[in-house]
């Protein structure tokens, strides 16, 4: 079987289809036998027995957004690291390990610089301290 034979991806497709089938099948099977007596009270969102106040789709803590941004940077960098890591052993065997080591180091150091920057700015703290905010305010003046 050659490396480019797409037959090897057959199990992936089958497994995804099976996952759909298991999920859909159990829900359909349940649909035939389970009771269905909806009423207005039953269909309200659960809020510990109180009537829900407003929608849950309101403004949300911006920290989650910052985490997502930081994640994107690191995820792209780690995705780019995979090919280098995969050939590292071969390169050391043919004596080019040093070159690759330097490139790995320079690449990772850029990543570390980004991490240090985020750390310094306080983006990694869940609760951005008032202290750092006060410092920014002073600088603005």
């Amino acid at each position: 079987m050659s490396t480019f034979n797409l037959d090897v991806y057959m199990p992936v497709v089958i497994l995804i289809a099976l996952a759909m089938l298991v999920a859909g099948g159990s829900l359909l099977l349940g649909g035939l036998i389970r009771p269905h007596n909806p009423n207005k009270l039953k269909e309200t969102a659960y809020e510990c027995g109180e009537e829900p106040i407003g929608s849950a789709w309101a403004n949300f803590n911006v920290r989650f957004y910052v985490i997502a941004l930081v994640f994107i940077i690191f995820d792209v960098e780690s995705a780019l690291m995979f090919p280098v890591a995969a050939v590292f052993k071969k390169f050391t065997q043919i004596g080019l390990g040093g070159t690759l080591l330097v490139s790995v180091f320079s690449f990772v150091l850029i990543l570390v610089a980004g991490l240090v920057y985020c750390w310094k700015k306080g983006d990694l703290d869940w609760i951005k301290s008032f202290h750092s905010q006060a410092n920014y305010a002073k600088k603005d003046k």
Partner: protein
Amino acid sequence: MNSTVVTYLSQSKELTNAISWLTKALGFDASSLVAFVIFLVACLIVVGVMSTIGGLGTYAERKISADLQMRIGPNRVGPYGILQFLADGVKMILKEDIIPSGADRFTFMLAPFLCLVGVFATLAVIPFSSGFILADLNVGIFYLVGMASLVGVGVFLGGYASNSKWSMLGGMRGASQIISYEIPATITIISIVLLAGGLSMGTLIGGQGGMPQEWYLFHNPFAFVGFFVFFIAALAETNRAPFDLPEAESELVSGYHTEYSGMRFGLFALAEYIEVFVVCGVATALFLGGYKVPFDLGTGAILVEKLGMDEMLAKNIGQLLEMGAFFTKTFALYYVVIWVRWTLPRLRVDQLMTLCWKYLTPIAIFNLLGCAVWMYAFDGKSIYSLIFETAATVAGHH
């Protein structure tokens, strides 16, 4: 190379004969058809076994927690209550399916599907033995990381679509936690890829041996630390305690699946328990030697040589031994996961993020660089073989 379960089976004469017979009978090349049938059967077996393991996982969880808290646990359904998960499954199918009126209906229904698809798709590259791996894709571990992140999407969508405050909080926490802990886990995986020199599961396990000193866990100090980084990150990625903030019962009712009832909730639970098995399996494959058994028993060569056994039979016995090794190690890790859950208290959100970004990520990056330097400096030799060689040279001089 992309070896698959079909590649293994095509070593036997019966299959080759069957293919040629079918080709004659049908009038076209039947090898693809036979491959498809074998894949289908193998996938059905894997999905069946994994669903049972997922179900038994809930039983094990309750039984072990009962054991740790000096209770008895489920003991009514079947011997020692082992059929409890079937009873739970039947109950979930029979329960009414409630969709909140304010919910985003399509997304609400889509979320459990995404979780289950993400988990089931990862099963394609789980190496049960050297022959029984559904598809040893050449991008194996990369594919696994990618597919596993689909679960995070499912968790977030489930929380968002419910339009309930508890679900929203749980979904948000879940998404941020899963993506955050993906970073240390991925970087640790990269450092192991560095050692193995390939992305496929076959290459990753092929560099290791059956004896503990040949595992990547003991290859070098960085890989040793890396195992714990990976295990902690994997715990957090599967939303297991002490990182179960997305479904923290005491603060968020039930987190992202608060509004889910009946089988829809069951699908989330099933996906979670299978995912725990998957990450334990990956940890086994990357660090604990995977399916490798000592003394080349896996290939069956020793059995042919010493006992004069039939070659294919010896190979099959080897495969069974390998499967036994893989499952033993994975279940041991599974036990540790449950054990951790019932031992440690839950973290706070800020502690969770501090642990990930300020401890695990820098340590993982340091490990990555350490592994790279180790590979370059010692030519990829493990610490054991270095000590062994040094000892041999010293002994030789005297």
